[in-house]
């Protein structure tokens, strides 16, 4: 085989594995979220289909697959059909440049656990996720439904407000690692949990987590699909597989955000104490912990009011993250960090 074909084959295997893994994790997340929320609310949750209800996502998938797909009258057909596709494409593209573990040696060649390694890795993720907003906006607009439109407007305003904070939370981390590449940022955090960016950049870690929660519209920032007022927000009119696609994109985005949190702030695939070799296992455990925190938040916090949401984003998070950048820049310049 020529080297080019070999590279292509490796890339194809990686893409297939990651997509398979993400789809598996997505269906597992829907089950875990329902079960854990139920436990937090003294209920049982779905426990009938398969052992512990584990086959519930499969049943849901089959059900959605055989449902009739409806397109509302007066909807903008093209955009209505395109919105879920945009959502899924941007969600999966963003996660393509994220590394999952140290470079492995397989069959005598170095294989990085990452689909594509870009010099501007973080910027690329930021660019792609900022395009993901369109799926929500267009889905709301194209449905010709007032709840859909309101949901779409709310989410565009919300994502717009928190995107800035999200991007700026990365700046301190980038300054410390002197690189946009996520693998370099993880490498800079090797050698114990006191070297993690959670310890070195606690403020940025907080603003990142808050902004990321808002960006994926999770409680307490889930105004975009506040079911009490908006039915289901932007995806009110979606049914069948397109509804499933929107759900999938939402969960893949949550996974992306969690994976980034682990890579940027929680030391990636490094063990909390020196001496233990780095491994994708630590990475997976940390991602699971972050995902649990997302579910935990949903079971704990009430939803913010709209004015509170805007005030928190612009008057609390943005000044905090700006302060963090200034202080970090000063410390890096002074040679302290």
């Amino acid at each position, binding site marked *: 085989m020529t080297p080019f074909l070999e590279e292509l084959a490796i890339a194809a295997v990686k893409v297939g594995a990651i997509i398979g893994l993400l789809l598996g994790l997505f269906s597992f997340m829907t089950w875990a979220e329902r079960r854990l929320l139920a436990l937090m609310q003294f209920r049982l949750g779905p426990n009938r289909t398969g052992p512990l209800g584990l086959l519930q996502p499969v049943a849901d998938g089959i059900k959605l697959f055989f449902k009739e797909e409806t397109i509302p009258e007066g909807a903008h057909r093209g955009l209505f059909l395109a919105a879920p596709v945009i959502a899924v494409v941007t969600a999966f593209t963003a996660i393509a440049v994220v590394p999952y573990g140290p470079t492995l040696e397989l069959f005598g060649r170095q294989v990085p656990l990452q689909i594509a390694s870009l010099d*501007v890795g973080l*910027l690329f993720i930021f*660019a792609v996720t900022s*395009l993901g*907003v*369109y799926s929500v*906006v267009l889905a709301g607009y194209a449905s010709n439904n007032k709840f859909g439109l309101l949901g779409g407007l709310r989410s565009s*305003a919300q*994502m717009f407000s928190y995107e800035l904070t999200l991007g700026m939370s990365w700046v301190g981390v980038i300054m410390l690692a002197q690189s946009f590449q996520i693998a370099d940022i993880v490498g800079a955090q090797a050698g114990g949990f006191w070297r993690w960016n959670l310890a070195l950049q606690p403020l940025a870690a907080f603003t990142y987590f808050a902004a990321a929660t808002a960006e994926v519209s999770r409680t307490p920032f889930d105004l975009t699909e506040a079911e009490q007022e908006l039915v289901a927000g932007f995806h009110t009119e979606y049914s069948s597989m397109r509804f499933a696609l929107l759900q999938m994109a939402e969960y893949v985005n949550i996974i992306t955000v969690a994976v980034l949190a682990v890579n940027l702030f929680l030391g990636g695939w490094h063990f909390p104490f020196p001496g233990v070799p780095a491994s994708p296992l630590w990475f997976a455990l940390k991602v699971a912990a972050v995902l649990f925190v997302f579910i935990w938040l949903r079971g704990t916090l009430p939803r913010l009011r709209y004015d509170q949401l805007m005030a928190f984003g612009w008057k609390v998070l943005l000044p905090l993250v700006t302060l963090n950048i200034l202080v970090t820049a000063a410390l890096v310049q002074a040679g302290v960090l």
Partner: protein
Amino acid sequence: MDAALFYLLGALALGSSIVVIAQPNPIRSALALIVTLCCLAGIFGLLGSPFIAALQVIVYAGAIMVLFLFVLMLLNVEPERGPGRSRQLTFAAVALAVALSAQLGSVLVRGDRGAGVEGFRAPSVDMARVLFSESFLYAFEAVAVLILAALVGAVVLAKRELP
């Protein structure tokens, strides 16, 4: 491969920018503009400048255009119906368009034709250096003035009655 991608992206960018100005429905115009901006980002990437490509998508496609769409949807702007065109304005527009094309054409004729798509592979800093150099500075600034003129025009159109 690079050349094929360049022509594909270039054609897409040109086609979608024609849709932007020819389309009476403002939402569709905005969507076409997003396609144009993403194609431009792709071309920046081909020029070996992933940094500018990423910035193009983040700032224009991801932030400014979201705001555009947001306002368009919030105000529920109706598709434009053809207004009466004044003959003098049409004449002035054609004259200015010809002048601009002539200027850009002169840059293309005078410019270094050897620097094709494959030839120009430089980091962002070098590209900025070339752009602000003697040979491109005036054309570059002229484009900036053109954008400013468009901005002023938009304000005048939106305000209708000036005090």
